């Protein structure tokens, strides 16, 4: 099968990369609490996402909480709290891309703590929970059952035979 192209890559090299899955595969060692996260969030995130996590439109930083129950309304508000199905996504995204102007600068402990704070502010976990590779994937998000696979969904209303 091998056509002789490319070079085998070591596990050590691979350890520089991550992509975290809903069951927690890929989560790093470390832990954090909402309490620690509150301070970090105020310092590193609030300028763009607001001290109440309500978003700061002028910076492009969206609201991270709110909007529960709004999804079938005329004005759905999609936030981590109201919309996101998995906690793994929160950890993965904050670790890879936030703070916006300092991407990739947070330690795993910081990401666990900030994630705990956002989930706590969204009334998804209480402030006693210590988030780590074990506990994080166990947190069930409010909208966990709000998604289904859209591939093959029926568009026959307009004679579409392709799937979308």
């Amino acid at each position, binding site marked *: 099968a091998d056509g002789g192209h490319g070079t085998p890559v070591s596990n050590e090299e691979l350890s520089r990369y991550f992509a975290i899955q809903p069951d927690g595969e890929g989560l790093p060692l470390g832990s954090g609490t909402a309490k620690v996260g509150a301070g970090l969030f105020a310092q590193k995130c609030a300028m763009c996402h607001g001290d109440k996590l309500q978003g700061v439109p002028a910076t492009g930083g969206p609201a991270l909480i709110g909007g529960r129950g709004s999804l079938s309304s005329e004005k759905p508000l999609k936030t981590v709290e109201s919309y996101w199905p998995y906690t793994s996504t929160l950890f993965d995204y904050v670790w890879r891309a936030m703070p916006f102007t300092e991407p990739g600068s947070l330690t795993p402990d910081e990401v666990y703590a900030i994630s705990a704070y956002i989930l706590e502010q969204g009334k998804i976990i209480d402030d006693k929970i210590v988030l780590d590779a074990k506990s994080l994937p166990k947190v069930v998000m409010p909208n966990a059952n709000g998604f289904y696979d859209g591939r093959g969904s029926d*568009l026959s209303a307009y004679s579409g035979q392709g799937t979308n």
Partner: protein
Amino acid sequence: AVLGVGAMTVAARAAEKAPPGAAFHEVAEDPTKELGRAVLSDGGYGLRSQFETEVKTIFPNPSPITSWSFTPLASQIGNLTPSGLHFERHHGGVPTIDPAKHELIVHGHVGVAKKFTMADLKAMPSVTRKHFIECSGNTLTEWKKPTAKNVQVTHGLLSTSEWTGVLFSTLAREVGLKPDAQWVLGEGADAAVMTRSVPLEKMLTDGMIVYGQNGEAIRPEQGYPLRLVLPGYEGNTHIKWLRRLQVSDRPFMTKEETSKYTDLMPDGRAKLFTLQMAPKSVITFPSGDMMLPRPGAYEIRGIAWSGHGRVKSVEVSADGGRSWRPANIENTPEPMCTVRFSCPWIWDGAGATLQSRCTDETGAAQPTRDELVKVVGLNSVYHYNAIQSWAVASDGGVTNVHA
């Protein structure tokens, strides 16, 4: 006589008086009586004419680092998008990547994890194919009411290029896929470290790791030096500045496939992985913000495309969809590629509503807005592919309407 102008090169001074992508040259009174510019006076890489002024325009997002720009479709000639006018969507800006240091890692549920340099990839068997890329957010302003003024903003998140690169199936042979492999994560080397999960079946069917665009290296805005191209899939999945492919038995549920690029239905539930772009078309002439000078003969022109395969037919209506005429397709349809269409039209000077609709080779057809909204509601955000209507008023002014 500006202070310090002496330090500017001729090229720099020429650029100041010309639009982006052009250099200024004096216009001779009679060009048959004055010698023109020498061969290679452009330094060996030519520019567009100083009389061509169209540019991409930016969406007024708060941060221009995570924003998008629109291809000027109204002035596009032909079927390809000039590389300099390809629409953009970046989430962390355009990185400047040294190709000599860039590598693509392929790992996960594979036999042997490997990394590939640009030289490795260029040495592998390649393919050259023309495909459109459309952001699934294209036309998102038009769900509830006609909003954008012109076709650059209604439909400009659409561009077509010739892409050259290595099929994922070729790469897969190099690493060997585990029997449980089902999905592949693509990851970019930009500040957003962009990630999307792609069904392995798509990757093996026609997924391409491209390094070429329109005959040269892909442009920085399009992912230089390496981009994933997934013909017919929504643009966000075509990971730019591609550095990593992780094979897995399940999708990763990244932010861009959960928080974003999911389609909210009226019942409050949302569809994940709506990946294929449906059949769509739009009239680019006459279109919003234009003014027809007088009644008479016109050539209606536009673009049609489908993420399912080749465009099979395009029809045009001048009466808001009551009657339809077949349009002429001006170039050979290719799979998951745009076509240019045209249709002669005599404008009698009365109000008219122009529309186009297309059907692809799978039989899928472009819906009316009513048909689309009936199925997916008003909050889907993505995948608006309804028939676009342009109203021509009796004064010749053209505006965006819902008909």
